[in-house]
């Protein structure tokens, strides 16, 4: 069975300011992954690792002057090869996206219901009144009380949790086959975060869409993802089914990330740390981008970029030091 989305050699690069023509900085440096129909892929990484840019590339929204190359095989055709008009039809329809900060991601001067209706007008051929009517139903479906009243409300009149629910309703309004959620719970309190994660799981079970769930928080991702990829400085360093990743992380970075998280069960005097600072995309040119922070790194790691190796079925690691 072919997966719903298959990304191959995705590269997002930005021209370097003041540098010679043609010189560019890879924010996403040739990554590949796949998401199966109805599956949830967790994308984990720290700031600047390229996880958000990957999402924008999937939406065809890489901000200029950035460029995205590679193949984005979605439901049988390459998104990157399609016309701007086809891109427009894909966005919000086949692929929808929700963002980290629902306050700013919603149009502050438009009633929420109207914003949801817009998706249905754009993608489902509804008239505005029909759309507005359906929007109420959508709000109800994402667990908002008195949805008719909320549909007329402006974003600032809703609480943070409600806004993110509305955002989800808006994303689902186009009946997408893939939902990209970029740090959807980061701005929320833990109690609300739990509610939203529950909601997304529930909706996925009901509707069957695939989700690409992006977060810096491994713990949150662990609650929802079937498969996980870990990104560092524009590359995928490890990819595995969720249970396997947590049970047996192989990349030093993944291991470090898990180890540095404080744990309720075992309280340590000192947390293990990953030394150094988060690398930018151009770090360690030519070699492993994590080498500078890695305890295992040797000359070989700095000389060549480690290729991804499948150590076990479905478990790929890009590290010379990871034993098979």
């Amino acid at each position, binding site marked *: 069975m072919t997966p719903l989305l298959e990304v191959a050699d995705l590269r997002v690069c930005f021209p370097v300011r003041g540098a010679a023509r043609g010189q560019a900085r890879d924010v996403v440096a040739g990554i590949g992954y796949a998401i199966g129909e109805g599956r949830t892929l967790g994308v984990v990484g720290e700031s600047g690792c390229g996880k958000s840019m990957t999402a924008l590339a999937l939406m065809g929204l890489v901000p200029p002057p950035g460029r995205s190359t590679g193949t984005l095989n979605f439901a049988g055709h390459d998104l990157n090869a399609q016309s701007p008009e086809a891109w427009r039809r894909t966005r919000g329809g086949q692929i929808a996206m929700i963002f980290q900060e629902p306050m700013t991601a919603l149009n502050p001067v438009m009633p929420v219901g109207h914003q949801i209706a817009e998706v249905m007008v754009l993608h489902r051929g509804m008239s505005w009144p029909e759309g507005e009517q359906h929007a109420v139903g959508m709000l109800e479906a994402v667990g908002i009380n008195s949805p008719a009243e909320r549909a007329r409300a402006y974003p600032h009149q809703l609480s943070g949790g409600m806004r993110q629910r509305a955002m989800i309703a808006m994303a689902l309004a186009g009946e997408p086959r893939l939902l990209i959620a970029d740090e959807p719970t980061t701005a929320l309190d833990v109690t609300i975060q739990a509610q939203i994660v529950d909601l997304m799981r529930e909706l996925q079970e009901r509707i069957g869409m695939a989700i690409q769930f992006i977060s810096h928080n491994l713990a949150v991702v662990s609650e929802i993802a079937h498969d996980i990829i870990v990104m560092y400085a524009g590359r995928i360093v490890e990819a595995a089914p969720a249970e396997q990743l947590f049970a047996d992380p192989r990349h030093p970075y993944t291991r470090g990330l898990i180890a*540095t998280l404080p744990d309720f069960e075992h309280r340590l005097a000192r947390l293990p740390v990953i030394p150094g*600072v988060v690398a930018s995309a151009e770090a360690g040119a030519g070699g492993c981008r994590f080498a500078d922070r890695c305890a295992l790194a040797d000359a070989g790691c700095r000389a060549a970029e480690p290729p991804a190796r499948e150590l076990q079925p479905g478990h790929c690691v890009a590290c010379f030091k990871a034993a098979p």
Partner: protein
Amino acid sequence: MTPLVELQDISVRFEIGAGGLFGRARRTLAAAERVCLAVGEGETLALVGESGSGKSTLGNVVAGLQAPSAGSLRFRGRLLDAATWREARRAIQIVFQDPFGALDPRMPVSEIIVEPLRIQGSFSAAERAARAAALVEQVGLPKDALNRYPHEFSGGQRQRIAIARALSPRPALIVADEPLSALDVSIQSQVLNLMKELQERNGLAYLFISHDLAVVHHLVDRVAVLYLGRLVEVATREALFAHPQHPYTRALLDSVPRIGRRRPRGRTIGGEMPSPLAPPPGCVFHPRCPKAQARCRAEVPALDETGPGQRAACHFPG
């Protein structure tokens, strides 16, 4: 033993909608309501709660950045007033969440760090320079950091600068208002370790404001849980994490995502914190409380001892 800082019946209220010449009706927002709390010498106390629960407001009160509307504040047993604050101000420093906004971009690090000393005025330039150099080393910044400017540093390093600045007047207490939440995961643990190390070396007390219970569990001695400006539970770390007495504390703990332990579905509390402009009557938590009964809607629960080192404001604790 007298506590280092003691809050007695502290309330902070804001007047909303103050009009001008032809003003309109005012409304009162209670950011903190009759909070009693103490931080001991060298102790780490966490303030936790959802956003809007009043944790930062209380932190500001302790740091002297916000005058309480009612109640009193004691420092080493002495009532703090305008005169006594002068001394206490040196002893209580604050570190903010956003290491980007908190540092003056036009000042070199050497000046930023010793700014509290300069304001105090009792140190010579040479003394200040020596102190700056020592602090930079203590917080694990490279030596050459002194002559550089904040924008040249990463987020984690900036938070180290902010911590160094807080340390410069040798405080007894540092109010740390979400010091980690703007940092990358891998950097959080570095800063967390640093804070612990500094505490051991300098005998510091921390008032640690956070929404991250995992971090709180790692760092602190005692935890105070706030909901809608009210203290709902205060307990030692062991007691709180082992057997939370207030349903809100329990809900918070249940909501924390953990690796390797799928959170049981439906164990989260529903709803959201109501507006502090219109707090519910009785126990403010009752609209979201799974245990709520008629009494909770009518009667404000007192913060009573429920076990050794543990107090909870709930009619039906446990």
